Each structure stands twice: as C-alpha cells, then as structure tokens.
C-alpha cells in the first residue's frame, strides 16, 4: 500500500477539524482565529490528476443566430441548424436566408417586439417594413433576425455576425429586455452591497445605481459594435427606441407590495385606500397629497405614481399623467422580477447615443404621442406591456422605413401613414393575436378590463374565437394539467397557437383556474349574447369543488390567478407565505352543505400586543381570530348565506400594525434568496387551510 500521506489529509488534523466545526456551529460568524485554522486544514492532493474531458466548443463563427453559414457554388447562404431546434420558436420561420441578390438588404435585429410577438408568424415588423419600403419604391428585402427573449449579449453577437449577410442597412428595435433584476445577473457582492446600503439607512438610490451602472456597460458595448459596423461598412443604422404601454399596463399586486421595510406598512395601505377614495370623490388635491406621502414612504413602489397619473388624466393633464405613468413603470428597476419593458433611463440613453453616433432615430414615444394627438399610448397600439398591435407595428415600421429612406437621401418620401392601415394579416390571425394577448395579460396579472377588451377585439375579427375561448375556459376549469387536457389539445390542433404553445399555459406547478382570463372571456361572450357562466361554474365545482373529502385550499389553483410571477414560488413550499396585507383563496361551493374551514396559521414575528386576523367571504367579514408567532389552529363554519354557487373569495386579512421582519441587519454574504427575504417582509403564514362539509371531522 502506498504511503498515503500525500494523498489524504493528515490524520492529526481530524481533531482540529472537529474543533473548528464545533466553534462554527456555536458562533454565527467566525472570527479571525477560526479562519486562520484553514491554513493548517488546507489539503492539496499530490500526484497526477486526470485532465477533465474536453468539451466541444461550439464554433460560433459559422452561425448567425440559429442559421449556419453554408457555401454553395461560391455563394453564401444561411440554413437553419437543427441543433438549435428547441430555439426555433423564438426566431423567424425562415429555413434559409438566401445569398444576397439585387434587392436592398435590410437586416432587422431586436427582441420580441421586433419579432411581432403574439402576431408573428402571420405578421411581424419585418414584413411590415418590407412592404412599406416597397410602397416607397425601394426593391427591398428584410432579413429578420429578431429573437424573442433576446438579451443584450445575444444582440451584440448578432450585430457582429449579421454583417456576413451583407446588409445594406441595419434596423435595431431593442431595449425592452435591457433589464437587470432579481434573477438576472446581480452578483452576490452586488446583492450584499444593496442590502447593507438599504438596511444601513443610507439614502443612496443604491439599487438604481447598481443596475444602471451594469446596464450602461452593456449598452455602451452594443453601441460601440453598431458604430463599428456603420463605419466599416458605410451603412445606415436605424435605431427604433421602444415605448412601453403606459396607459394600459398596470402594476400587479406583487409590484405594489411595500418592500424593504416593515415600518408604517399599515399607514401606507391606509394612505392607498384614502387616496383611491379621494379620486373617486373628485378631491384631487387631497388625493395628490396622499399619493406624494405614499411615494415618500415607499419610493420603490409604483402605486403612488399610478394614482397621481389617474388624478392628472381625469383633470385633462395628459402629459402630466404620462410622466407619472413613466415614473410608475420606472420603479420596475426595483422589482425582483418584472415583465420586459423599456425604462426612461434606457430611452434617454438611446436618444443620447444615437445623437452622438450619428445613427437614425425612430423615437416611438414621440411617434406614438404625435399619432395619438397627445394621448397616451395604450391598447390601440399595444397588445400587452411592450408588444405592438398590427397598427402599432405598421406605425413603427412606417417611421423606420421613412428614417431609412431619409438617411439615404433617395428623394421625397411619398408614402402616407394612412396607407399602411390595410397592411396586416387576415382576420383569423388578428383574432388569434388578441386572444393570445388576453391570455398573456391575464397570466401577467392584469385586470379583467383589459382581458375582456382583448377578448372582445378577438371576437370582433372572427367568430371562431368563440370556439378558441371555449377551449380555454374548459381547459382551465379542470385540474388536469393543460398539456394533457383535451380542450387544450383542440386549441393546439387549430394550428393558430403553435408558436405560443408554452407561453399560453400557466407555469409548471402553478395550476390555476385562470379566473381573470375566464371572466374576461365570459364578459366578451355575454356581449355576443352567449352566456356560459353557469356552465363554467358547474364544471369548476364538479372538477374541484368540495366533494365530501375536504379540499386543500393551499393547492395553487385555489389562490393563483396571474401565474407569470416568479415571486409566486416564494409563497409555496411546505406552507404558504404571504407578503401582502391579505391572502385571497378561491373557495368552490357546490351549494349543498354547510361548510367548515380549518386553518393553521401564524405571524412571523413577536408582537407586544395580541394580533388578530380577520376573515371575509365575498367582501363580508364573518370571523376573526387571535394570531401570534406560533402555529394556531382554528376551525369555524362559513355562513352558507354568504356563499354562492361556484367561486367564492375567502380573504384573510393579516394584522399590519406591529410587523417586524427578522431580515433587517447587515449581512456578510447574500444570495438571491436572501435578497427576496429582505425585499419582501413576511406578513403571515398558513400551514393548512382546508374546507370540509360541516358534518365531517
């Protein structure tokens, strides 16, 4: 047997290791003396090591996106590479990008907005651009390299690679994905810096500073590459500055959670209620004062800005309203996770860089503002947070074409924007786009109003939407996973949704009745004299209602509505965690029996006073119970006269006055999980919530 001493740590170190381990267990953070022991405990194996198996390095140079460069008969074309088949759905449906011929070749780069997300593949910005350039007399072909979910890094690679396609011009429509939040790329060191700055009471806007500094570096690199292309190939570069759906995209419940501090949460919610009430009664000065106080207390929160915008808009000050709506959206930089959407910082940065680099600018905020004659861009131009309707696509590409032609000085621009109205896909595709928008809006936590709007628009284009909608509400009424559900299968068989197969489903593990979506569908169908509300309720109750065995309301289908919210996963686990002032559960009632509720709950802090939680059914308070830091079990009957057949809203209101988060001290190390714990103080916890017939134990 070999002398193993150089191949295993020293035997005598075992005692030291045990000693250090014990001390690390006893002390929260190790001191220098414990750290110094590492020198003795270090171990490096002597002898040879196996070299790690070499990994095949993907030769990136011969690909542009998913297309591989291929030479045939001296000509270069690009063929879609099957190795990236999983990625095809994010790109244009072009198997081959042919060698450049006589046409003026424009390469379009960008993200999902440039992809025409939700309208694509039936229509998209590249099609619009090509047609409009044609109307202007240019024999143009547009090579569509836009990619849904394109990151800024991927965009830089595309800029570098696309020159191999011999473009005569570049159009870049991007900026919505230039976000760094939560799970994207904040390092542990940066997280620690943010946490310690905030808990230390430093007034520095540290989150914004960290994120904007990181973003600036990436954006500078992108524009350097674009400038290099412009200079080297002497081709015009048109930058389309994105716009956000300010008017019709609202913050959701998670966005509006007071974050980072538990101070005065109760007061902040009281201000929110009062401000909302003041707006309803028309007392705008009072409302604005309350909103400003809210913003002062929680500057990371969009709610105050949104209410200020409402005040301004009702009073006819649309520019003022728009400014507040932008401020509301700009708080997305503070959110742990947010939908894509360009911020003011990025828009202003693009304007500055375009001016400095001599690119052509299509400033969509300006374009849309003028097109709407001063009104705020909303649902007529947007399908969701940043993706454009057909009208929006045509308008954006009209101006891109015009900017391009202007940069080439090819004569007077003669195309009228009104001529673009007839451009677009057929009615079925428009119907599908709006219905997909309804689904997407609902899954992102938008309200029933906008969901119903898109459902109505869908039905106005084509009545087959009726059938599509039926498939969806029948799918959501079942607890069977969407991907096995026969109604979803029928929907897929229609062929229209193939591109959005994954995106139209709830997230894995977050089964949902999709109540907002279905309510939107039902509202739109009622306008067409089709009333299936009763049928939907019956299906839901039959599938998931209380059937004598007891129903676990902590199953996600009983509390998830908009499921595209990564923070929902923070709520789930062995027990339910609440960060909001209330918890809402959907109780399905078959109408036949008295109902008992069993609830095991606690609050995650010690309070000096007895705390109470309040329960409501369908807006009516009916029960209150003491709560505290240990698990308490309560059982009570729900008055049947407060229940209705089908879906009932059971709300648990948590005490807010004396909340204390245990995450308020500086840290030595922090990861994303800890970041969320600091950011979202826990308000309440539920270990079980079960509904049973009253006669069952």
């Amino acid at each position: 047997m070999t002398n193993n001493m150089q191949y295993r740590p020293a035997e005598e170190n075992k005692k030291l290791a045990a000693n250090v381990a014990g001390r690390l267990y006893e002390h929260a953070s190790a001191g220098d003396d414990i750290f110094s022991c590492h020198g003795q405990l270090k171990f490096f194996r002597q002898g040879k090591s196996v070299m790690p198996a070499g990994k095949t390095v993907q030769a990136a140079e011969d690909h542009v996106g998913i297309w591989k460069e291929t030479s045939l008969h001296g000509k270069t074309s690009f063929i879609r590479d099957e190795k990236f088949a999983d990625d095809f759905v994010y790109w244009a449906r072009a198997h081959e990008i042919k060698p450049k011929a006589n046409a003026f070749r424009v390469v379009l780069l960008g993200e999902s907005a440039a992809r025409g997300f939700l309208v694509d593949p039936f229509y998209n910005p590249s099609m619009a651009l090509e047609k409009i350039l044609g109307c202007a007399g240019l024999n143009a072909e547009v090579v569509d390299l836009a990619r849904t979910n394109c990151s800024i890094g991927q965009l830089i690679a595309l800029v570098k690679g696309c020159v191999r396609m011999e473009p005569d011009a570049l159009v870049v429509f991007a900026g919505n994905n230039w976000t760094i939040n939560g799970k994207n790329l904040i390092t542990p060191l940066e997280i620690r810096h943010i946490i310690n700055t905030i808990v230390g009471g430093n007034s520095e806007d540290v989150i914004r500073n960290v994120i904007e500094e990181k973003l600036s570096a990436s954006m500078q690199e992108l524009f350097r590459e674009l400038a290099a292309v412009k200079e080297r190939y002497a081709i015009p570069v048109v930058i389309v500055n994105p716009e956000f759906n300010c008017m019709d995209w609202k913050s959701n419940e998670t966005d509006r959670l007071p974050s980072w501090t538990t101070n005065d949460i109760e007061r902040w919610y009281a201000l929110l209620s009062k401000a909302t009430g003041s707006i309803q009664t028309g007392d705008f000065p009072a409302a604005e004062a309350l909103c400003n106080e809210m913003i002062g207390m929680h500057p990371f929160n969009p709610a105050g800005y949104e209410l200020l915008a409402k005040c301004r808009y009702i009073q006819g000050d649309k520019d003022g309203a728009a400014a507040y709506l932008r401020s509301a959206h700009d708080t997305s930089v503070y959110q742990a996770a947010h939908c894509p959407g360009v911020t003011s910082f990025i828009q202003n940065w693009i304007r500055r860089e375009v001016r400095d680099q001599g690119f052509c600018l299509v400033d969509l905020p300006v374009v849309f503002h003028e097109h709407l004659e001063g009104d705020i861009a909303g649902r007529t131009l947007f399908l969701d947070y940043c993706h454009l309707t057909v009208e929006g696509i045509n308008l954006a590409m009209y101006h891109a074409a015009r900017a391009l032609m202007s940069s080439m000085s090819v004569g007077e621009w003669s195309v009228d924007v009104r001529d673009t109205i007839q451009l677009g896909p057929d009615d079925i595709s428009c119907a599908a786009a709006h219905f997909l928008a309804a689904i997407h809006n609902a899954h992102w936590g938008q309200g029933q109003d906008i969901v119903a709007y898109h459902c109505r628009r869908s039905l106005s284009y084509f009545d087959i939407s009726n059938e599509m909608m039926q498939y969806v509400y029948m799918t959501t009424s079942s607890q069977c996973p969407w991907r096995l559900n026969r109604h979803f299968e029928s929907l897929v068989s229609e062929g229209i949704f193939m591109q959005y197969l994954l995106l139209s489903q709830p997230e894995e593990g977050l089964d949902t009745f999709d109540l907002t979506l279905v309510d939107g569908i039902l509202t739109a169908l009622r306008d067409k004299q089709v009333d299936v509300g009763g049928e939907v309720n019956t299906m839901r109750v039959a599938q998931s209602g209380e059937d004598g065995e007891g129903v676990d309301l902590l199953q996600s289908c009983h509390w998830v509505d908009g499921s595209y919210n990564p923070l929902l996963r923070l709520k789930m686990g062995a027990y339910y965690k609440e960060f909001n002032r209330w918890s809402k559960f959907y109780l399905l009632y078959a109408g036949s029996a008295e109902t008992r509720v069993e609830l095991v709950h606690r609050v995650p802090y010690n309070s000096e006073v007895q705390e109470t939680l309040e329960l409501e059914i369908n807006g009516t308070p009916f029960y209150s119970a003491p709560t505290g830091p240990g698990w308490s079990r309560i059982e009570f009957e729900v008055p049947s006269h407060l229940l209705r057949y089908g879906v009932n809203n059971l709300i648990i209101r948590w005490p807010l006055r004396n909340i204390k988060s245990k995450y308020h001290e500086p840290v030595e190390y922090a990861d994303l999980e800890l970041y969320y714990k600091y950011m979202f103080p826990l308000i309440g916890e539920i270990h079980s919530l079960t509904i049973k017939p009253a006669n069952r134990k």
Partner: protein
Amino acid sequence: MNIIGISALYHDAACCLLQDGQLVAAAQEERFTKKKADPSMPVHAFRYCLAEGGISIRDINFLAYYEDPVKKLARQLWCGHDYRDKELFLKIDPKRPEREIRELLGYEGPILMYDHHLSHAASSYYFSGFNDAAILTVDGVGEWATTTYGSAAGQQIDLFEQVEFPDSLGLLYAAITSYLGFKVNDGEYKVMGLAPYGRPLYTGKIRRLVQSGANGQYHLDMKYFDFINGNRMYAWEMVELLEVEPRRAETGILQCHKDIARSLQVVLEELLVDKAKWLYETTGSAHLCMAGGVALNCVANGRILNATRFEKMYVQPASNDAGCALGAAALAYMDTGSPKSSLSKMEHAYYGPGYTNCEIRNVLEATSLAFDDHTASRKDLITRTALALTEGKVIGWFQGRMEFGPRSLGARSILADPRHPDMRDKINAMVKKREAFRPFAPSVLEHKACEHFDIDHASPFMLETCQVISEIDLPSITHVDNSARIQTVNRTSNPLFFDLLTEFDRLTGCPIILNTSFNVRGQPIVNTPADAIICFLKSGIDSLVMGDFIIEKENNSIETLEFILANYMDFRQADIARDVYTFL
C-alpha cells in the same frame, strides 16, 4: 405520537411519518418535484406525510433528522473545503438543516439529530421483524463513517466498529462507475448489471485499489483516487493502472469496460463476504440487517447470504439515504421509551400517495384519451391485463400507493411477458430508452418462487439475486449469468398484483411477470395519474392500467398530444454534479 423523519441536503431527500410506531407515510421528494435524486428539504413529501397521517404541523411531537451536521462539517473541513468562502459556507453551515427545517417546513418543535449510519442501521433493524441481529451498513460516506458494524438486541443498537472516510466501498464503486462513463450515485446499478458480461481480468488491479485490514477495516489506496477535494473521482494513476481509457458517457461499451465492472464486483463481494464473516463471528447472531447505498448491490447481498452463516437477511428496501428518514424516525421513537414491539416489520413498501378511481377518472375524462372502465368488475380488469401481457404488450401499471425506495414493486411498474424473446430489447429501446445491456427483474408468486428460482424464502423488495432454475424459458428477465433479481409477491402485501400474477399463471403456466420501474431514462418514477399518462404517451408502452381503467394506445390518436409534450419541458435536473460524488 407523531414522529417525522427527514433526510435531505445531500441526495435523495425523503420524509416519513410514524404514528405510534406505525409507518404511515413515506415518500421521496424527487417524485413530487420531478428532479431526480432531489436533495432539497422535502417540503412536498412533508406535506404529503401530514395529509396522509391526517395531522397538522402542530401535531408533530418530534422531528428526527438523519445525520449530525457538525460531525459532517468536521469531515468537510478536514478535506480542505474553504469555509471562509461565504457562498460555500451557506451549503455546509452546520446550522443549515435546523434553519431549513424551521423556515422551509415551518416546524417549531424539538429536532433530534442522529448519526447517518445509525439512521441507516435503524432503518433496517427496526423494520426487520428481528429481535436481534448483526448490522452492516455500507455507503459512500455519512459524517465520517463509510461502513459500520453493529449488533442489536431488543431496542438497543450498538455500532461497535466503523471504517472512516476516505476509505469507502461506496466511493470505490462510485469511482469505477465514473471511470466507466456513468453518473455517480445513479449509475452504480448499471455497473452491477454490466458485470456479468465481463471477465474478472482486472481483479488483481482492483485489489490494488482497496485492501482488507484487521477486523472490519479496509483501506483505499488514495494514490488512485482524487475525490477528497471533490473535483473528480479518480486520479491519473488509476488510468495508468488499469491501462484502459476512461469511457466517455454515451459512447460504446467495450469488453474491457465489462471486464472492469466484473472485476470490481468480484472484489466488492470478496470484501463484503470477508467482513460479513467477521461480523458473524463477532456478534453470533443468525440475522443480518443491511442498509446504505451499497446494500442496493443485490448481487453482493446474495453472495453474503450464501457464503456466510447468517440464516436470514433483511435489507431495507430504501437502502439509500432516503431510507435514513425511516431510521431517524425509528430512533426518535425508541428514545421516547416506546417498546420495539410497536415498530412493525416492513412487509411492503407502499407508503406513498395513492389515488382513488374518482381522481383517476377526473384526469382521464379531461383528456382526449379513450379508456375502458372496469370499476364494475375488477376481475375483468385483471383478465384483460393478463391477456394483454400474453399478447406481448408492454403495460404501464399504476395501482394503489406508490412505493418508497428505488424499486418498483407492482404499484408504479412497467410490466411485460418475461418469456418473450425480444421483450428486453424492446423495453430498453422503446420504453425506457436506456442501455441495451440492462437486465430486467421478475415478480413472481411467492408460493411458486422456489419452483423457478433458487431461493427458499420470500424476497419482496428485489434486493437479492438468485439463479433461475425454471423450465420455462425466461429470456427477458434472465441475466447473462443466469441470475435474476426477484420480487416475491403474496396476497397480503399486494392483492391486486398477486391476482394479476395468478391470472397470468393461469393463462400461461408461468407465475412470473417482468417488472421494471414506471419511468423513462433520467426521470423519477411516476407519482400522479398525470405523470403516468405523460410517461405512457412519451414511451413505447402499449397499455396503461391505472386504477380500474385501461387506456390502449392503439385505440387512441395521440400525435397532437405527443407534439404538445415534446414541446414542454417538465422534468428538471436537481443541482447535483453527476461527474463526482456530492460531498457538500
């Protein structure tokens, strides 16, 4: 009294519930999360156990955790892991288990910690039905111990000797597993299955990797291993020794690889038999209890029983770390002063979630799949399924409560006719999509087992191999060395599966059915009816028998469903490095 047992944060996290000493529920977290060998704190398995036991978080008297995190940290520090690295320390922090139990499970009561190998030992002994036994636990590593030897009588377990890290038979086996291009903590079973194809040409060299010592001791020659720092399993010196290029994953398996596997198995068996003999001499007990990941090497188990004077052996069906949850819970129960007699022998492994016909029907009716309803006549269900087997069909069998442990035992199983000459290749290629050499195991009527296999006792958990002596030709379950890893089935433990075997026997004269786990390669065994349907649709299974319902693939047009499923990523990888054993 309600006691929860937990194993977690290493690999194969699991949770179990003992109620007044009775095992009421047990499940592995991977089955809920779809992450194979998921090591996360088992939040889903925990919720399941509470629901199955009809209790709430407040009703738990004790929570038992399966290892001592301070001792484990000591071993990790001894290996040189840099505890000053904040990111690393989050993983190895000895307070992490308690912190996660409190924060993630929400448990507020007393937490009891038991040593890893003691938990293994308890998982076997306390559920064996023996009043006394010798105990042998063998795995990769717990805190320090890699092998322990003990004796138990009545309530007391006494572990009187142990082998310490880095000397480890489990890590020896894992190193060769890695060398042969399989994933550690996952591919060891494949190496065991590969061994009969090989010749013991490398035993001399393998013996240089490990040498027996006095009493229960043995030592690895660490010159050949490189796993202490956790970056890789074997060193260049091993390559020089074996003179065979390490096999890259997913490449062809050569004869030399098979020979190495065989040689490893020979050496492992030699050592284990040697140590088991010493254990017998030391304890004098006629009974042997085994646990730990190496105890899943059923070939070695069979050798131990045959080659020693132990009369009876009990191997915990969940011999891997998942089973430690049972052991820890049993230890906590014993510590309350309860009598051992209140801990029952584990006669079966069906402790996971089950689904009623109503629940299954709800899912089926929501799909477009045509299915036949046999709720009116279970007899018809059995007859039809047995007939389908005789026709050469591959059946997905989803019945009752899910098994606890790595084996499928007639609750979540894929079944087929073992007499069919092409069945093994068909299932490997079309259904499991795995390596062609992998053998399948048989389930057999307990009272007829001895007519077809060289075995004289019940073997309900597929944890020992024996020779096939049947006059019936059984190519699909007979391994190349004429062995089989059998499950004996009696009416008490699984009446429905028993009935199926009986009917198959009636039709064919063969009381044996091929039984493999209901999953496809790389994915955990199915848990829910939806899981079963998805696996059925994505594999070459011909019929799915779920509760009292039968779904025939030939009666259904499933192209659209296949398309939807092909475009949906529903199985996720746990964050476990599969090239090297997880020490953190």
